[in-house]
């Protein structure tokens, strides 16, 4: 993109606004600048207890579960699917980890939690790719049953943990940065590396673009789709560990509540279309950060937190309208139709003005 700008200066700005990440990034920057204007100390980052501290760091720290889940969701959406069960998987993963921590070591607890998440993801993937059930419906099953499962594991209690290393997952810092953010970034980097440096990403886009054609051209669409759901559940499982570590316990009812909606929102804001095909992992990360910034803004500015939902509703609507080809076509048509009278009317206006 930068090379384009350098070689073709005349069309530079147009190319910039046409870049896939332009609008999400612009929205994020605008929101951050808005915060800066309202509270000048918003960007202040200082070192406290040997790590960075401030609103921006908070956004990174609290946004990491959402980034993780949204990255997994991006791949699922790229195959034309959707995973509604991530919130429930978050609850299950937290529940297993917290219950197991009572009796075994941290590694075994985390292994058990993530292992169960893999099973849940495999189940989702089997329903979608094997039984060919619509993704919304297939993952709805686990969305309904998963919270019950989480409560079954915790015995309906809120299980608290005091294990130091486990609490460090969300509360710890490495190289002055929050550990949870580093985990999220590592997963993002690894995923982009695997997806973009191998043919996998291309295959996913082809499966999402047209599953039947991809299958006929020799791709194992079913297996790819299945893998995406497994990956999504794994990401949700890691996010569940971070969330339960953050609140020092597992709450089957409320852990990860509504996070599937935030994740889908992050993916859509990031420029991945729900109709499948093209996807952008970088856009998803920006989208997730945008949503977290919105939440943090609401807290930082003292706006009643209930307004967040209204904000989100407006954001979803606007983003979807902008992405909708039908809406764009209608907008262009409306703009073009009055063109000839508008041109004729313009000189008159100028005369009146002068």
């Amino acid at each position: 993109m930068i090379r384009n700008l350098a070689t073709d200066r005349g069309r530079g700005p147009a190319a910039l606004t046409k870049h896939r990440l332009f609008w999400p990034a612009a929205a994020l920057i605008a929101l951050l600048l808005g915060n800066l204007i309202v509270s000048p100390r918003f960007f202040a980052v200082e070192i406290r207890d040997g790590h960075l501290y401030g609103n921006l760091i908070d956004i990174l720290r609290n946004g990491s579960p959402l980034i993780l889940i949204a990255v997994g969701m991006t791949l699922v959406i790229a195959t034309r699917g959707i995973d509604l069960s991530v919130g429930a998987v978050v609850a299950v993963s937290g529940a297993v980890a917290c219950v197991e921590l009572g009796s075994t070591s941290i590694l075994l607890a985390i292994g058990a939690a993530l292992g169960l998440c893999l099973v849940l993801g495999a189940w989702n993937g089997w329903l979608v790719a094997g039984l060919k059930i619509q993704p919304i419906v297939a993952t709805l099953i686990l969305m309904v049953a998963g919270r019950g499962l989480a409560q079954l594991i915790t015995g309906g209690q809120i299980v608290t943990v005091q294990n130091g290393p486990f609490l460090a997952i969300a509360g710890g810092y490495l190289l002055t940065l929050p550990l949870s953010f580093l985990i999220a970034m590592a997963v993002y980097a690894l995923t982009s590396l695997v997806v973009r440096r191998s043919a996998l990403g291309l295959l996913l886009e082809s499966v999402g673009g047209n599953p039947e054609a991809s299958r006929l051209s020799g791709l194992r669409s079913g297996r790819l789709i299945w893998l995406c759901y497994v990956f999504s559940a794994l990401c949700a499982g890691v996010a569940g560990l971070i969330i339960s570590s953050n609140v020092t316990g597992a709450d089957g009812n409320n852990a990860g509540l509504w996070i599937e909606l935030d994740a889908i929102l992050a993916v859509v804001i990031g420029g991945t279309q729900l109709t499948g095909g093209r996807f952008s992992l970088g856009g998803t990360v920006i989208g997730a950060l945008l949503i977290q910034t919105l939440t943090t803004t609401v807290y930082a500015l003292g706006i009643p937190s209930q307004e967040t939902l209204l904000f989100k509703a407006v954001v979803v609507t606007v983003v979807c309208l902008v992405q909708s080809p039908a809406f764009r076509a209608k907008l262009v048509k409306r703009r073009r139709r009055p063109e000839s009278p508008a041109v004729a009317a313009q000189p008159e206006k100028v005369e009146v003005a002068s």
Partner: protein
Amino acid sequence: MTALTVRLRTYRPQRRYLPVLAALALLVGAYGFGAVRYPAFGSGQVVLDIFIDHAFLLVVAVGATFVILTGGIDLSVGSVAALSTMASADLLQHKGWPAYAVIPVVLALGALLGFLMGLVIHYFEIQPFIVTLAGMFLARGLCYTISTESISIDNPTYTAMAQTPITLGAGLHVSPSVVIALVVVAIAWYVLHFTRFGRTVYAVGGGERSALLMGLKVARTKVSVYTISGLCSALGGVLMAFYTLSADPLGAVGMELDAIAAVVIGGTILTGGSGYVLGTVLGVLVLGIIQTLITFDGTLSSWWTRIVIGVLLFVFIALQRLIARRAR
């Protein structure tokens, strides 16, 4: 060979009813199981209590049936129902409006929300899933802006609706809400099976392009079903206010899942075009009887309800796939 084809042909219409029959069998089986295990379960009042406790869900699920029959989905129903209880409580308690003015306003609000979502879905060709998701956020956000605390309702009309039992003789009774819900079911059944609009709903669900090419009014139908769903959700919210005599901004969370589950268990196919509103009634009853069974058992905790509903959802969806595959 001919005998076989004849027999197959005579079986074909029944296959359409198979999911509904499966739901009915499940319902009867669950009821029989309960009646054998717990003597008190066998009394007719238990069944009527399921209606009383789930009248609002029934109305909401009927609205969702319309949307799902066209192949769409409405995730906003729970939030719209909550909004309608909050709005009616606020207008009654804080603004001092009379009940006969509040109910039409609230119903119109729900219908308007549904209408707007329908417009966006049809004219801007955005997936129903995401539009109604935005609607869900919007309605829930509006609930919070009305009040973050729950409001209790002491309006005489509402308390009368909540507490006047309609006796059916033999010690059985239902609440006025049940009558309203059954009237809604009857109207929905009539509309879906005996009007041109109803046939168009099925046609749009069967294939939108074909319906369009047949000259059916696809746009009007699609916008209408979301309006109906909004209206039903708002009515469900009013019934919920009758039932609980209070309004909670966090009320009816997850109701959209229950409504969709009831519709699916009732045999409506989620890709649209096939299903019955009476099946939805069975679906709601199945959900209700599971809850009642778990309550009667006493040793099973409430979260088993969610797990059992999840398992039932899977079984019925798998059944649908099987039928669809064999039909091909």
